[in-house]
């Protein structure tokens, strides 16, 4: 298995945010993680990428325990993240933001500066601008392109549609099939259930730090999701 979490727990000081989360992602898959505000989705992403350090065996990469490794090492193993809130580097231009994504690891795959500009042509026009001088949607494109530059095995996207207009969300989601075609597995964290079900092979629903539902989109009913999302019968 490309990536697994086993009984993953995480805390912020005294506050426990995750209570034994198990998820799995295999090569080429697209997995969605849904859940309400505060469910622990971002905490799960931070734990996988080493921003929050855990017990080694709580996160496995090809069976190897990596739960205690630092972010830089996780990234070099081929796990890239589009973090919540995009987090572009304000001192870097658009092009530099992209370049820095592929600086520590090039990886095998189709992604390079030209390929990212072909994926999001507007960025080619804006490449000399400061990353933070762009619109929200364009910034999200930079954040995705930046993560792709290392040709990751696995791309983690934390709420890439947050705060964007529907047409912009459509453009951004249209990029995901191309990412999969390049051989990268994807985890999308979403609050928009419809978007998540449309792109994913498998959906995990989280609530209050636990996984409350795992299913294939075709197999779940609205009631199942409602119950898993809000913790009550519909």
């Amino acid at each position, binding site marked *: 298995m490309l990536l697994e979490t086993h009984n993953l727990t995480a805390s912020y000081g005294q506050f426990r945010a995750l209570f034994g989360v198990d998820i799995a992602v295999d090569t080429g898959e697209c997995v969605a993680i849904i859940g309400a505000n505060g469910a622990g989705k971002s905490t799960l992403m931070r734990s996988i990428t080493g921003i929050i350090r855990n017990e080694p065996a709580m996160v496995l990469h090809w069976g190897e325990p990596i739960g205690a490794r630092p972010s*830089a090492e996780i990234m070099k193993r081929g796990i890239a*993240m589009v973090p919540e809130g995009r987090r572009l580097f304000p001192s*870097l231009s658009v092009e530099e933001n992209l370049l*820095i994504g592929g*600086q520590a*690891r090039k990886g095998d795959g189709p992604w390079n500066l030209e390929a990212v500009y072909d994926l999001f042509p507007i960025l080619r026009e804006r490449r000399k601008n400061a990353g933070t001088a762009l619109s929200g949607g364009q910034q999200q494109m930079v954040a995705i392109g930046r993560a792709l530059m*290392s040709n990751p095995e696995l791309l983690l996207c934390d709420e890439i549609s947050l705060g964007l207009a529907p047409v912009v969300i459509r453009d951004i989601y249209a990029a995901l099939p191309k990412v999969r075609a390049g051989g990268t597995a994807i985890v999308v964290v979403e609050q928009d259930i419809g978007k998540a079900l449309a792109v994913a092979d498998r959906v995990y629903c989280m609530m209050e730090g636990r996984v409350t539902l795992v299913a294939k989109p075709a197999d779940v009913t609205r009631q199942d999701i409602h119950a898993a999302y809000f913790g009550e019968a519909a």
Partner: protein
Amino acid sequence: MIWVDTLVQGILLGGLYALFAAGLSLVFGIMRLVNLAHGDLIVFAAYLVLMGVTLLGLSPWVAALIAMPLMFALGWLLQIGVLNRVLGKDILPPLLVTFGLSVALQNGLLEAFSADSRRIPAGALEGASLDLGIVTVGVMPLLTFISAIIVIVALNALFYHTALGRAFRATSDDAVTAGLMGIEPKRVFAMATGIAMVVVTIAALYLGMRANFDPSIGPARLIYAFEAVIIGGLGSLWGTLAGGVIIGVAQTFGAAVNPEWQILAGHIAFLAVMLLKPRGLFPRAVD
């Protein structure tokens, strides 16, 4: 035309202050660390060069060239072994640690080299001068100033046109996200301090060839460096040069009026700039 001469001497003196300050500015710009031992590290490097000259019989230039990688290694180790452990949200621990380092360096140097003042022999260059028509300038001050420009051009090229420089800027913006890019902030900081120590070695070479030094003079050089960095705007290297020049010019004009006013005039210029432009002449947009 005496004032033209004073102005030119002041500008050239500013080059020396900019050299003192460039390493401080680099480190502050990248990791928001104020190294209170910076001046003492310059003095330490000056002794290192002096030993190359006196013990190995090298020319000062060759001795400095050999001292550079040693100082780089020292900076790297200092960052990895000590400073990285105290860097954090709270700015007090690194200040205390570098203050302690400053005291320790001064005492160590006093132990090793005594309080006698020393000078790096510069041979024929000492006292050599160049007639430029309107003014006559010392070769040594001129070389210092040219070196300052070269150092700043090189540091800027590194900062804005290399992958390492990109990593410097990204880490300074957001160390957590830099980690997601495969960058290890602690290694980036170690590189930065190592490079700052190479610049310190260049500053030490000119400090030691131009004037006498002893183990106690570090803190005074730190003050000039500080003022140059702050006048220039934190983190801007050209600003740091401008800051050095302003202090240098103020000092030479002060000295021209009354020799006792040299140091005071520099500090007054610093205060005047702070009153008019509290964030310095070239503040960074993001801070």
